[in-house]
């Protein structure tokens, strides 16, 4: 597959050199100061990611799936959320999580192994991370069906309406569950936006193993609109997601967005991408970096200056420091506590097992 070009089949509003691009269907209506806010989120997302990667290297985390390179796709889409929306992430949406106000220290707990996927700072409309590829797309459709029943879809006042957005990768598009999600969403005209981050790889497999044609075209086969956007262009992502969420909120049914981007880092900290991809590819994408182009643009138009960037660097360092301390201070879990988290009412036999475990553990405290 050849690289997509800006045009009707590939929405781009800010090119890699930081120039605004005209598009006949979409235009960005925010201010440059909004974009400066967005840049801050991009930069901090990247810092969270690099810090977490470093923490893994130091042995403080078991694993980390980097979001490096996908910041615009994540932050841009998150800027399209409104209060009745539900957000269903996969496992790499640290930028989205950051934008909805989740404390990044919480995120670390899952990867440090001090907790499962729930985080104290998680808002109720942000579903926990999912690790079984594609399964969450069905949950999202169900949540959108709940929104229909809750009466928050297609209301006169757009403020009163909501939709569900669900994140998944290019690899995930091969899963039966994702395609069934397309079916159910179309059948029930569920207000759901399928947000596929095509980062070109599913671990080692290039997108071509999953699909011979651009992923956004899958949607047409299920009878709903699909659209491809430059995933490294925050403006385009935000505008397209805005449109799609609005389309869904109004009760028109689902939309598929393919955010064309690149996983600049490894799949996870356990991965070694040199086994399956070359430097040329990485370099080509580095030239399209989502942060670089927005910074260039904002500097050029004078919306930000070096002082602003310096302040952001300080904030970023503080955040990193907070992550480092927060990580090592994450409370250690106790196995005993988990026995009561399986059921609303814990069965006797499971309490017995807990007690056996506690008694056994206690036996180490006494001389044997």
């Amino acid at each position, binding site marked *: 597959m050849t690289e997509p070009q800006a045009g009707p089949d590939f929405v781009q509003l800010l090119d890699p050199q930081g120039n605004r691009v005209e598009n006949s269907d979409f235009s960005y209506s925010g201010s440059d100061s909004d974009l400066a806010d967005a840049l801050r989120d991009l930069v901090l997302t990247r810092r969270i990611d690099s810090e977490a990667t470093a923490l893994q290297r130091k042995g403080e985390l078991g694993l980390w799936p980097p979001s490096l390179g996908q910041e615009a796709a994540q932050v841009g889409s998150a800027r399209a959320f409104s209060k009745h929306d*539900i957000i269903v992430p996969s496992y790499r949406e640290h930028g989205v999580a950051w934008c909805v106000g989740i404390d990044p220290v919480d995120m670390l707990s899952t990867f440090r192994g001090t*907790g*499962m*996927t*729930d985080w104290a700072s998680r808002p109720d409309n942000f*579903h*926990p991370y999912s690790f*079984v590829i594609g*399964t969450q*797309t*069905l*949950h*999202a*459709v*169900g*949540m*959108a*069906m*709940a*929104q229909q*029943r*809750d009466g928050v879809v297609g209301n006169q006042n757009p403020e009163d309406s909501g939709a569900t957005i669900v994140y998944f990768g290019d690899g995930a598009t091969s899963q*039966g*569950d994702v395609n*069934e*999600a397309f*079916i*159910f969403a179309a*059948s029930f005209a569920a207000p759901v936006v399928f947000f596929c981050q095509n980062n070109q790889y599913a671990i080692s497999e290039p997108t071509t193993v999953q699909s011979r044609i651009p992923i956004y075209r899958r949607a047409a086969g299920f009878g709903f609109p699909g659209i491809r956007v430059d995933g490294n262009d925050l403006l385009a992502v935000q505008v397209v997601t805005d449109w799609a969420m609005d389309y869904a909120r109004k009760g028109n049914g689902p939309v598929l967005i393919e955010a064309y981007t690149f996983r600049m880092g490894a799949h996870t900290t356990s991965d070694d991408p040199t086994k399956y991809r070359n430097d040329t590819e990485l370099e080509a994408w580095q030239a399209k970096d989502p942060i670089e182009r927005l910074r260039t643009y904002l500097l050029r138009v004078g919306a930000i200056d070096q002082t602003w960037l310096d302040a952001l660097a300080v904030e970023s360092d503080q955040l990193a420091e907070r992550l480092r301390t927060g990580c090592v201070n994450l409370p250690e879990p106790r196995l005993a506590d*988990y026995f*009561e*988290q*399986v*059921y*609303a*009412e814990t*069965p*006797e*036999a*499971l309490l017995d097992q807990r007690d056996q475990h506690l008694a056994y553990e206690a036996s180490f405290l006494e001389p044997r």
Partner: protein
Amino acid sequence: MTTLTVAKALNAGLRRALAAEPKALLYGEDIGKLGGVFRVTEGLQAEFGPDRVVDSPLAESGLLGTAVGLAARGYRPVVEIQFDGFVYPAFDQLVSQVSRLRFRTAGRISLPLVLRIPYGGGIGAIEHHSESPEAYFAHTPGLKVVTCATPEDAYWMIQQAIADDDPVVFLEPKRRYHDKGEVDIEQQSASTSLYSARIVKPGSHATLIAYGPMVRTCVEAALVAADEGIDLEVIDLRSLSPLDEATIIASVKRTGRAVVVHEAVRTLGMGAEIAARIQEHCLYDLEAPVLRVTGYDLPYPPSRVEEGYLPDLDRILDAVDRSLNG
């Protein structure tokens, strides 16, 4: 008291749950106009509308996966799988999602979802229509697994399952759908928990442990045995997970002998777990090994030989004999 079949009792229980709980909804293939292939949901779409009794596209993972989303947002979906053999496409959603959402969220998200599955053989069906998959579910932490054996239980247990905040796999013994019994549909609520076993018939010589379709068979066996002077206790487990271990253990401590009966294959069937627990807790009370009368370790065979495959009166009595002489 009203005389109802198991199928009609389920229908009545579902109707009452839909009326009482606005968040409850039925969801499955062909459950609307058709009323389900066993007519368990008959008339309910007409009564409650297509948003409460929802025909699903033909995909079980999609069905259960979207139900997860509904349940996570406060609804109480009651999902129907058309036949036992068609639950496996939904297995990933069941094992990795339904059973774990509470655990994954430290209790913050409840999943009040019921998965209704007509199960078991003996109806002369083609393959995939006579399966007994209960052990797969009971081996999965986070699921509750129950099954009813009588119209009375069918009526109450389905309502209790819907009211439960945990996901419940509700197994319906399809060969018993047309069995009749008395149901007190005026009563306000069930008199016992659906997670407690029921001593159907007390007895002193040996304990028969069964559930779902095999309860009736065991009761019949016990009646025949009684004629020969053998006094069998029959336990209907009702809940396979959690297991009402106390009732089982107390009974076997009294009788000293136990026979577990189920249609599912023997290896790693419920009988394995029950035998393991009995020997663990009552080894010194046992007069004979715990025996298992079960389906053989085969894929479900063609219907013309299912009679030989399924436990019946004679095979149960034969095991009782072996136990009494063992």
